[in-house]
């Protein structure tokens, strides 16, 4: 059974019902004995066997449900502890690094002016760059489904704003970026964290522009595909070697055919993938070296959340008497 469904099983309610059944069965047995003593009612042997079997089955089921819920709680606890340890580690690392960098920066600033002033500038530049990297790495490790600040977002509107911003600040690329939004029969909406989704699309567009040259086009398309909304960003740029395509989403990874002097932290695609995963979606890549790169981020459609029969979760809710709002 799907882990998501298992997590949502209302074990408390089931065990409550089983305990109720168990108590009722005991009551019947007790009444049976009383009745027998009073010589008012006799129950056949087969009737008693059915009763005892029922009690045994109920007890065993009850016990398994209790053991299961204890196990689930334990697993959750272990996961939470692991997560906390990781968070603490990242936070401490960030804190230490930032303090060291700050001290270096101040020390460099307060040093008496000797030698080439450009060297001091280099120190300041590198310190800032490291600080940026530490900050971005912490941000990356903090993107998690439990921490999203979600709302309904019309991806067509959001992408239009992003593309227009790119066009207005990079007039040289204005003609290169094209946006296609498939909003028939309805606008492609998702339930997500707007700040993160915005950053995800920005990173994809920025990468596409960076690794392709004018006059080739960068195409951004948004369309609903079954229960997902696909954000597709395609460029006709340098491409990514086949053997490296699995690694492009790794933090700090940079393709072997990328000019090492080109700027960037190497976290753009990693962040995009983390954002998609945290929203229950995915990020994939198709590319051919020297020809094109297409990155597709799929995010669960806001409609899939309420549409019936599309997930085990909605199936479970329907059995339980539809707790979902919206069309059924």
């Amino acid at each position, binding site marked *: 059974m799907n882990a998501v469904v298992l997590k949502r099983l209302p074990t408390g309610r089931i065990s409550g019902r089983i305990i109720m059944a168990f108590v009722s069965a005991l009551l019947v047995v007790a009444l049976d004995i009383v009745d027998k003593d009073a010589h008012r009612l006799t129950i056949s042997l087969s009737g008693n066997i059915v009763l005892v079997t029922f009690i045994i089955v109920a007890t065993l089921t009850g016990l398994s449900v209790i053991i299961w819920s204890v196990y689930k709680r334990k697993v959750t606890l272990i996961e939470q502890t692991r997560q906390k340890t990781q968070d603490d580690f990242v936070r401490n690392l960030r804190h230490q690094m930032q303090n060291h960098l700050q001290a270096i920066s101040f020390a460099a600033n307060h040093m008496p002016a000797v030698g080439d002033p450009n060297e001091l500038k280099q120190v300041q530049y590198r310190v*800032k760059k490291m*600080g940026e990297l530490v900050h971005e790495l912490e941000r990356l490790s903090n993107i998690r489904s439990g921490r999203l600040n979600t709302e309904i977002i019309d991806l067509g509107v959001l992408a239009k704003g992003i593309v227009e911003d790119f066009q207005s600040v990079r007039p040289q690329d204005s003609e290169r970026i094209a946006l296609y939004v498939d909003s028939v029969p309805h606008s492609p909406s998702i339930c997500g964290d707007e700040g993160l989704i915005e950053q995800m699309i920005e990173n994809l567009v920025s990468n596409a522009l960076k690794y392709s040259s004018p006059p080739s086009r960068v195409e951004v398309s948004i369309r609903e595909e079954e229960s997902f909304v696909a954000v597709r960003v395609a460029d006709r740029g340098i491409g990514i070697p086949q053997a490296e395509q699995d690694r492009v989403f790794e933090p700090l990874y940079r393709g072997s055919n990328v000019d090492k002097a080109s700027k960037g932290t190497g976290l753009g695609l990693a962040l995009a993938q983390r954002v998609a995963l945290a929203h229950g979606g995915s990020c994939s890549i198709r590319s051919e070296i020297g020809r094109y790169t297409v990155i597709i981020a799929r995010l669960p459609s806001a409609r899939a959340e309420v549409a019936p029969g599309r997930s085990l979760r909605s199936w479970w809710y329907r059995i339980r008497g539809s707790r979902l709002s919206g069309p059924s």
Partner: protein
Amino acid sequence: MDLTGSETLLLADDEAAITDPLLTTLTRHGYKVLVARDGDEALQQARHSHPQVVILDIEMPKRDGFDVCRSLRREGIDTPIIMLTKITNTLSKLGSFEEGADDYIIKPFDEIELLARIRVVLRNKTGRINMRTATVLAADDIILDRRSRTVSVKGNAINLGEKAIKLLDTLMVNYGFYLSHGELLRKVWGIDMSMHTMEDDSFRESYLENRVRRQVVTLRDQLNDPRDKPKFIETRKGYGYRFIPKVDIR
């Protein structure tokens, strides 16, 4: 008004390698500087020495910076506070700086940048401590209910996204003062431009400023506030955006 010269600043950080050079710089710029080495000391000094600005590191022995900030605000002390970190957890919530900090700056920062932030918080010192915790902000026809995250104009609810609500909230709390693109990016979007090197994408700054502009335009449209004759949000080139009417709390 010359703001430097007589103000007392409280600098709380357990790293001498950070406080010592800062002490030199801040003193050179005319500030009187008190230094606290842990959270308890910071709290005591903030209570009894009445500094005009408190600069708080987050991770300190005995009591962390958030804790000190919360305690001061709970006691009704409205001294402007600048945190030496990003306020990650609170920025996602409405009301932005719920811990009660006025601004933040991410390490490693330039001393010049810190001096600029100190000047801004001193200039904007408003005694508006209650506005940060109020449930409802009201100005003329606009009512922003933080609990239900709804905004209404003349009694009609308008449909605003999270960012637009956060933007309106920040502008309302700072009514009467201009907020620059950089300040709005920090307070509404949680992006601190000063920590980026800018060399990567030279266009990033103007790109992000555009993002603020876009959101302000959307908000203005929703509030039906004309740009040329604004009733609520005024734009002034080189200064930023200002919420015009007086805001009351409920």
